């Protein structure tokens, strides 16, 4: 909470539902046990009691959303009441929203090895600020999480952090992430590995991938692949397309992702014939061809799931040129989005915060990803939260590390897509909660939803309130956000994980109890 506590929630102009919405919000919550002063001291404390009245509840598990009230007692959801008729008057989905806590299938907390970029503690605080109550950490640490001992160290650090955020951890697929031999997958599974991934790099060898899928199936785990045909991406800096051509950046072609997806799916089909329990999850898909291949594979019954990041569903390669319009606002009537032609450039080009792998794609690609999100092809949104230090990021674009610090801005970007009509609110929340829960299956070990009698895993956010993205408001050590200087809606007021307080906005806490 440190710096974040300094700022007050602001009402977004023209966004909410006018005075009736505002009235609903101001009386939205009553929290006991959430201290007003020194909120940081409350992190990790069991939520004694919370009463949220007249809010918009979204429960993807039951498929229901609408006006309602929610009561938490001693960390447990005591009552969920849906309001109807006159009681529901004046409550809409533009104000305070209550949803199950978000689940991130893909985050980098950098510990051990890169603690100046992020730690389990700072990453957990950032996650909670973003509304997440569960994170799945990638194993490209130093040393990599290729042995049970390293994984145990991370779990211990999570407990020591005092944060109630649920930290799940992937083990590597191959020893040392070297791509040559399998890591000790069984021991990693026994130590609690939620799945296996060599993320940051693809599993280059199809033979290793095949064996990994078979072996992980035996352990009841999925292989999470970062699909990239590396021979097409040597030295790549930006999506291959008009923006890269004009800016003189080496292209990262869509074919590099799509061909890797095609290979992975062919290998999966081969494995499934022998071992039906095999599971493949493709992470951070970014091009239409990948989405289409997954769509077809799912129709054919293959056990594959996939995710898209918030940045790939809102930002496009035009941002590298200095445009700051969201993908759906790009004019593609002439077949190609051209920010120079459209006089859409409003910022300096080459912001290194925009360098990410896979790269930000064309607006048309983003729209295809959004269609995949809407039609169920894509199972989840995952942040690929990739914090970096200024030493690694405040350099020439082509020398900057890949990655966006995105776990705190995910909700804000998703809500931009919702506000633009590209995604329904229910589907958006589903992709952050029940969707990733379905991908994790029994590995999650709990049911996701607004369920009476269950420990509270909740996020309360206000679509009518904005927050400014600044190095000070980001709780992550990684300040590498391309959204610095912007105001995002959906200010998170309260995050509760496992019945304990994970994040509380000072404006929320100061409301009279």
């Amino acid at each position, binding site marked *: 909470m440190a710096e974040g506590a300094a700022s007050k929630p602001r009402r977004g102009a023209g966004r909410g539902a006018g005075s009736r919405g505002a009235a609903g919000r101001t009386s939205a919550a009553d929290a006991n046990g959430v201290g007003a002063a020194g909120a940081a001291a409350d992190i990790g404390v069991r939520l004694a009691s919370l009463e949220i009245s007249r809010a918009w509840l979204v429960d993807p598990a039951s498929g229901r959303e609408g006006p309602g009230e929610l009561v938490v007692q001693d960390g447990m959801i005591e009552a969920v009441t849906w309001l109807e008729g006159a009681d529901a008057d004046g409550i809409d989905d533009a104000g305070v929203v209550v949803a199950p806590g978000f689940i991130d299938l893909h985050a980098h907390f950098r510990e051990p090895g890169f603690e100046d970029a992020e730690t389990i503690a700072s990453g957990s605080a950032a996650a909670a600020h973003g509304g997440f109550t569960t994170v799945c950490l990638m194993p490209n640490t130093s040393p990599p999480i290729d042995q049970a001992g390293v994984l145990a160290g991370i779990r211990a650090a999570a407990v020591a952090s005092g944060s109630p955020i649920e930290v799940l951890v992937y083990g590597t697929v191959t020893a040392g992430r070297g791509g040559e031999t399998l890591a000790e997958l069984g021991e990693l599974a026994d130590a609690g590995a939620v799945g296996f991934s060599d993320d940051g790099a693809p599993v280059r060898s199809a033979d290793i991938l095949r064996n990994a899928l078979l072996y992980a199936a035996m352990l009841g785990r999925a292989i999470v692949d970062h699909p990239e045909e590396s021979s097409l991406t040597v030295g790549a800096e930006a999506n291959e397309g008009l923006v890269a051509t004009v800016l*003189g950046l080496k292209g990262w072609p869509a074919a590099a992702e799509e061909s890797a997806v095609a290979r992975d799916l062919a290998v999966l089909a081969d494995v499934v014939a022998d071992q039906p329990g095999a599971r493949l999850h493709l992470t951070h898909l970014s091009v239409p061809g990948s989405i289409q291949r997954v769509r077809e594979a799912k129709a054919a019954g293959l056990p594959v799931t996939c995710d898209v990041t918030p940045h790939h569903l809102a930002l496009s390669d035009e941002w590298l040129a200095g445009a700051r319009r969201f993908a759906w606002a790009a004019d593609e009537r*002439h077949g190609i989005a051209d920010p120079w032609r459209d006089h859409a450039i409003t910022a*300096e080009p080459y912001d290194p915060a925009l360098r990410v792998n896979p790269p930000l794609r064309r607006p048309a690609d983003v729209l295809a990803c959004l269609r995949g999100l809407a039609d169920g092809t894509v199972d989840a949104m995952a942040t690929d939260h990739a914090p970096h230090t200024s030493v690694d990021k405040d350099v020439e674009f082509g020398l900057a590390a890949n990655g966006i610090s995105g776990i705190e801005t995910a909700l804000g970007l998703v809500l931009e897509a919702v506000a633009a009509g590209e995604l329904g609110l229910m589907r958006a929340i589903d992709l952050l909660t029940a969707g990733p829960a379905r991908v994790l299956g029994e590995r999650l070990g709990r049911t996701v939803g607004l369920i009476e009698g269950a420990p509270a895993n909740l996020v309360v956010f206000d679509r009518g309130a904005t927050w400014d993205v600044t190095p000070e408001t980001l709780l992550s050590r990684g300040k590498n956000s391309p959204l610095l200087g912007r105001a995002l809606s959906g200010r998170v007021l309260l995050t509760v994980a496992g019945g304990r307080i994970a994040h509380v906005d000072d404006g929320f806490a100061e409301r009279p109890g």
Partner: protein
Amino acid sequence: MAAVNAPPPELLDQPVAATAWRHRHLLDLDGLTWPEFELIMQTTDSMREVLRRPIAKVPALRGRSVTILFYEASTRTRVSFEVAAKNLSADVVSIAAQSSSITKGESLVDTVRTVEALGANMLVMRHAVSGAPYLAARHFSGSVLNGGDGWHAHPSQALLDLYTMRQHVPGGSVRGRKVVIVGDVLHSRVARSNIWSLTAAGADLWLCGPATLLRGFEAWARSWRGPSGRGVPGSFHVTTDLGAALRDADVVMALRIQRERQAGGLLPSLREYAARFGITAERLAGANPDVLVMHPGPMNEGVEIAPDVAIGRGSVITEQVTNGVAVRMAVLYLLAGAEPRRG
């Protein structure tokens, strides 16, 4: 033409005051209006007049400090900027930074801050990474001039190219003239900057080369040709057919082919390149009889251009070098007196 307010030569005998220029930096040509191109061209006319004097030196930038920071080997551009700055009486510091310092982890931002602390008002920079001057500009309180960044831009080269074309093309305008750029367009900052200046000038622009070295440019040309509301004449084509490109061409510019393109799998061999895309007298037979032959240098004679063509009747390659000094004097002068618009 008077509307562009170029400084007359006699004004250069005084320290630079406010010029009509409105940009703090010169990093790319993409944002320039046609009157701004005209201002540079006409200021270059004045600089050429200075260069014709017995003592080709004016006090316009006396007391200004220009640092020339090159992270890539270069002779002609670096020396050209040095001579230009000295002709304007600026104090010149030239730093040949080892390109290996990039990998040693020396930060560009640190270097720029150091250069500024040492008193530089203007920074001329060359860097192997596209976009690097934008990073420098964010951390430098004076003006940054891009002396070439990666594959991205080489503004002063494209300006001297435009100036040289206007000198020789009948009527002094490239509007409607067929200008052909041949070679490794993909990796060429010269080509990219020429695309901006020549499309702004209303030329009939053609890019030509092997398909592997043109990838992506057809999309650029297609977008440019599309309904754009740019309100400029001219056209923009991309082709692998050298014969079609050269037919009735008014200007042919050959680009340097680097040997590593062969190792990178983009070209079967330099021999095959020379046979298919080399500019020879035979091939130029299809062009306008008065065709201008240009090259940004350094040349691989016998690869992208035949030796007899390089020194032949239509060649203006050495004039490009001479004009380079005048153009760089012009941009240094204009930027030194710029009153940047805010925002």
